[in-house]
Each structure stands twice: as structure tokens, then as C-alpha cells.
């Protein structure tokens, strides 16, 4: 049974036991042993495969050689016949017959080796797939175990410190509150900066005699003097001329 399927079954029952029961040590050991066995089989099959492939190549070379020999001896037999050497041609034909028998044997061996190569390759592929599958199952089982153990540690740690997991809503509220606090603080800091910044600038401008109100005092004095001048010298003096001190 796959670990995932086992988990589905377990989850219908008691959730809390999943951590332990999904990877009962025994099951893991069996999986691990199967992986070791399968790996051993693969190693052996690979060794066998190398040997068989070498033999296959050797027999292929041998077949080539024998075919060459057959062709050569047939040529020689033909030559002998052409020179009316019947006896010699017969002898050579006998040699060709031997070579052909050998060639048949080699061809049969070669076919057997080819079949073995295919079989061994399939065997290796199958065993490797099995290893991958077992390893995947173990990974899944161990991950599940690890997650549940971690959860237990986390829960213990929270209990241990006396604090408890706050409810989700509370968490959200706290986080929102923090964000609002932060946003408020930033706004306040910004306002403060603006105020302090603009006042400082105004003060500097005033000190330099620039801007609205910079020479307000002088203007007020001028206005008062003009009123004074107006009341003593009469109303026919144009107001513009009264502004200058001493102009009356």
C-alpha cells in the first residue's frame, strides 16, 4: 500500500497518531531493506549486462570473421574447380562446411546474448523504478513524521512558555493594530517634520528680510508717520509722498 493511501486511511481515524503510525519503524525497515536488495540486484544485473554485452560484441566480430573466411574459402574452391582440381575443391568445400557450422553456432549464441541484454536491461529498469518508488514512499513517510513531530515541539514550546496560541482573529487584529500604530506614528512624524521644517524656513526668510511680514514693522511705522504728517500739514499732501520719513 502506498504511504499516501495509508495516510488517507489513517486520517479518517485519529489524526494525532499519524505522526507515529505512518512510519512505524517496522514498515520503514521493510522498505529500506527492499531498497538495499533492489540496489544489490541492480548492481549484479549491471555486472551481468556488461559481461553479456562484451560477449555479444565478441560474437558479432567472430561472425564477421567467419563470414569472411567462408567467402574466402568459397573463392579458393572456385579457383580450384577452374583449374580442374576437383579433389582440392572438395577439400576446401569441407572446410567451408566446418566454417558454416561454426557460423551457425556463433549466430545462435549472438541471438541468445541479444535476448539476454534486452532482458537484463528490462530487469535493471524495473529494479530502478522500484527503488525510486520505495524511496519516494520513505520520503513521504519521513516528511509526515517530521511535520507532526515539529508540530508537537512547537505546541510543547508554546505550552512551556505559558503563552497560548492566540486565536486567528486576535492575531489579525493585533497585526492590524500594529500596522495602524505604525501608520499613525509615521503620519505624526511627517506632520511634525512639516511643521518644524516650515517654521524654520520662515524664520530664516524673515531674518533675511524676505517674504510677507519681513518689513511689517517699517511699514507700520511709515503708516503712523504719514497719519501724523496728515494731521499737522493738512489733507492735500498725496499719501505716496508721506511714506518717506522726513518728506513732510
Amino acid at each position, binding site marked *: 500500500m502506498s504511504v499516501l493511501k495509508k495516510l488517507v486511511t489513517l486520517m479518517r481515524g485519529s489524526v494525532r497518531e499519524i505522526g507515529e503510525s505512518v512510519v512505524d519503524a517496522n514498515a520503514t525497515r521493510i522498505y529500506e531493506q527492499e531498497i538495499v536488495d533492489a540496489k544489490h540486484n541492480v548492481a549484479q544485473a549491471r555486472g551481468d549486462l556488461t559481461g553479456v554485452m562484451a560477449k555479444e560484441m565478441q560474437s558479432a566480430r567472430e561472425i564477421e570473421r567467419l563470414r569472411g573466411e567462408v567467402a574466402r574459402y568459397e573463392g579458393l574452391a572456385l579457383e580450384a574447380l577452374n583449374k580442374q582440381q576437383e579433389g582440392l575443391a572438395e577439400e576446401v568445400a569441407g572446410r567451408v562446411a566446418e566454417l558454416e557450422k561454426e557460423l551457425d553456432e556463433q549466430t545462435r549464441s549472438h541471438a541468445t546474448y541479444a535476448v539476454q541484454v534486452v532482458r537484463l536491461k528490462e530487469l535493471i529498469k524495473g529494479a530502478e523504478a522500484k527503488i525510486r518508488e520505495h524511496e519516494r514512499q520513505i520520503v513521504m513517510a519521513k516528511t509526515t513524521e*517530521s511535520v*507532526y513531530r*515539529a*508540530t508537537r515541539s512547537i505546541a510543547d514550546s508554546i505550552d512551556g512558555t505559558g503563552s497560548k496560541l492566540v486565536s486567528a482573529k486576535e492575531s489579525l487584529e493585533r*497585526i492590524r493594530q500594529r500596522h495602524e500604530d505604525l501608520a499613525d506614528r509615521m503620519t505624526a512624524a511627517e506632520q511634525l517634520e512639516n511643521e518644524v521644517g516650515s517654521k524654520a524656513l520662515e524664520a530664516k526668510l524673515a531674518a533675511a528680510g524676505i517674504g510677507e511680514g519681513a518689513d511689517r514693522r517699517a511699514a507700520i511705522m511709515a503708516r503712523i508717520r504719514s497719519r501724523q504728517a496728515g494731521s499737522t500739514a493738512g489733507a492735500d499732501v498725496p499719501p505716496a509722498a508721506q511714506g518717506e520719513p522726513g518728506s513732510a
Partner: protein
Amino acid sequence: MKTLQEQLRGLELMTSDALGGLGVHLQPIPGEVEVIQVSIEQRDALPIYVTCSDSQILCMCYLWEESDLLPERRTELLETLLDLNPSVPLSSFGRVGNHYVLLGALARNARAEDVAHDVATLSDNALDALDAMSEFLQ
């Protein structure tokens, strides 16, 4: 194989960088398996737990428990989680016992910066998920 703590050296700073400079604090949790708690400034209600098995590193964030759910909307919530799963970058919804979790998995030999990236993404996703799913919670 390196211990998780050795492998994740520098995770604090890397995660902080990935989160635009938020403070990050690591705390190993004692137990049978290695677990490291990653606490993030302003998000201390949603810590990320990093743990590992032989084959992978898992980053988990606990979202809510069964008892947090509005019972009448439970099926709707489960379907929504399945529907959302493919859209959430790098993280998946899951359940461990009574806890609904958001988790990200990496290869066992992942680099610390990859784990940092996953932790930062997971934290952002968890905030979004909690916010998006709050209508299903009581």
C-alpha cells in the same frame, strides 16, 4: 548532512532584507526534530517555523485552528482554500492536526537566501490569507 541551524546561518539578515528591513529574530525550539522559530517585527502573532526531514526543508505558518472556524461556513472555506492554492506564490495551504497552515517546501540543500525568500513570501502570504479568510472565522 549539515544541521538546519548551520545551513541557515545568516537567515535573520537575509529575511529582514527580503522584508524591507523589518526586524527578524530566530529561536531554536527544543524537540525530537530541528525546528527554528522565525519571529518578525510587527507580525509576532504569526511566526514562521522552519523544520526539515531527510529530503526537504519546510517553512510553516499556523493560520487558525478548527475551533476558529464558523461551523456553517466550513465547507465554503475548504473549497476556497483549494481554489486559492494555485494562485498563492510559493506557498500552499494545508492542515496538520487541528491547525490550518500555510507552508513552503524547499530542497534539503537549499541555500539560506532561498529559505529567507520563502520565509518572507510565506509571511506576506499568511497575512494576506488571514485577512482574506477572516470572514470565515469567528
